[in-house]
């Protein structure tokens, strides 16, 4: 089984030797965070599928430990991103992306609660990108954010699948995309104890590797 997995992975990577990867970073703020930063790398393994890594750091002002709100701390997310291109035309691209992240949270406020927690976060999203002209792309879609606390106490419904609306705009310049992302939507979880609404704004930059000006619409994740 292990050999089969290794062979399949190597085959997929070798077939995609000609393809263009993406590297990017972004900074932003949200309802729950003073500031946050992300970096990612995404590599295509076929015409439709791509796979990548995402790392996110947040200095937060509102998060949950054992479904109880705290107002100060840090979180780190390390995620695997699977991208699937559902459809593409000259001026339109439809993607499904799934980011599955391991979450480490450090509680710097409430000493009656555990000082750290471990959890998982799932961000499946449907993302549409439209070419408005040679330089500008418009992005919209929806994300169903779900999170689970695993340790020290298991809270399986910490954040139930919540529909967050995505909107963004990118400026295309040679081999780079400069993107403004916005997120907003209602949330619910833990029988009402956790987040009830989410918004986030970020700005970022994504580069093609190798560097060249691709005519097709690039992969993007929210």
């Amino acid at each position, binding site marked *: 089984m292990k050999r089969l997995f290794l062979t399949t992975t190597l085959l997929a990577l070798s077939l995609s030797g000609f393809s263009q990867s993406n590297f990017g970073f972004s900074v932003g703020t949200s309802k729950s965070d003073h500031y946050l930063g992300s970096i990612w790398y995404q590599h295509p393994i076929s015409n439709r599928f791509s796979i990548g890594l995402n790392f996110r750091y947040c200095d937060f002002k509102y998060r949950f430990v054992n*479904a109880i709100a705290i107002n100060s701390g840090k979180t780190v997310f390390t995620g695997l991103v699977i991208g699937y291109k559902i459809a*593409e035309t000259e*001026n*339109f691209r439809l993607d499904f992306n799934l980011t599955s992240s391991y979450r480490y949270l450090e509680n710097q406020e409430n000493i009656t609660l555990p000082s750290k927690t471990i959890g998982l976060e799932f961000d499946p999203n449907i993302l549409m990108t439209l070419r408005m002209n040679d330089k500008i792309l418009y992005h919209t879609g929806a994300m169903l954010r779900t999170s689970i606390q695993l340790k020290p106490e298991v809270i399986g419904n910490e954040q139930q699948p919540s*529909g967050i609306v995505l909107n963004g705009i990118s400026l295309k310049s040679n081999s780079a995309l400069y993107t403004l992302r916005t997120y907003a939507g*209602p949330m619910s979880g833990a029988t*009402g104890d956790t987040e*009830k609404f989410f918004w986030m704004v970020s700005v970022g930059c994504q580069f093609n590797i190798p560097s060249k000006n691709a005519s097709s619409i690039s992969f993007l994740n929210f």
Partner: protein
Amino acid sequence: MNNLKYLNVFLLSIFVTCKVSAQEQQNKLGFFFQSEYSAMFLSSHIGNAIGFSMGISSKSRKFDIGILYYGRSGPINNHKTFTLQLDPGESYKGKTSLELGADHGFIGLNIAYNLRLNNNKWLIRIPISFGQIGAGFYLKGEDRITPDGLRVSEWEDILQDGTDAGFGLASEIGVQAFYQPFKNKHLQLGGGVNYTNTYGYSSFLGGDNFYNNKPRLNIGVRINL
């Protein structure tokens, strides 16, 4: 609100049905996505809500079938609170009356008839939806820091006798208009009005008609494939 997990299953069904390339588009099923902000004209105030609908368009593009999801979330409706007078002898953090926030969510099947005019520049849409609502009232601000380490939902159950949140069925019928303002034919802007009815939902503080028999104005972006 638990039903939201079925959205994941629905997304997978879109994969299967909408896997098309540029050359295959004609005479194939299409895809639509509409994000929306809506103003809910409730009995005592106008509620702000955010949501989207998404699904599959018929080969002729005359019909859409998908899901509609939107929520009147508490934090974007801070202008409206509801006073809970506690029972005699009962108090919470020394207070005998509390200002509560309210939130709401709807998810349901969305079917629409589409009338395209002026070479697809205009779209008139008649959507009908049927699904479930979940709604309730919750402690706000500093009241969410409980005095004894209990979770806030446990205190909400105690103070509101376990009836603070409820579920029911809901239906909507409406009319919407969208216009293609840019060169890209996949993008349209527009809005409309929906009329909402609820069945079997009784609000803890607002009565049976809190969300029942109410209009909802919406504006948003529509993406077509």
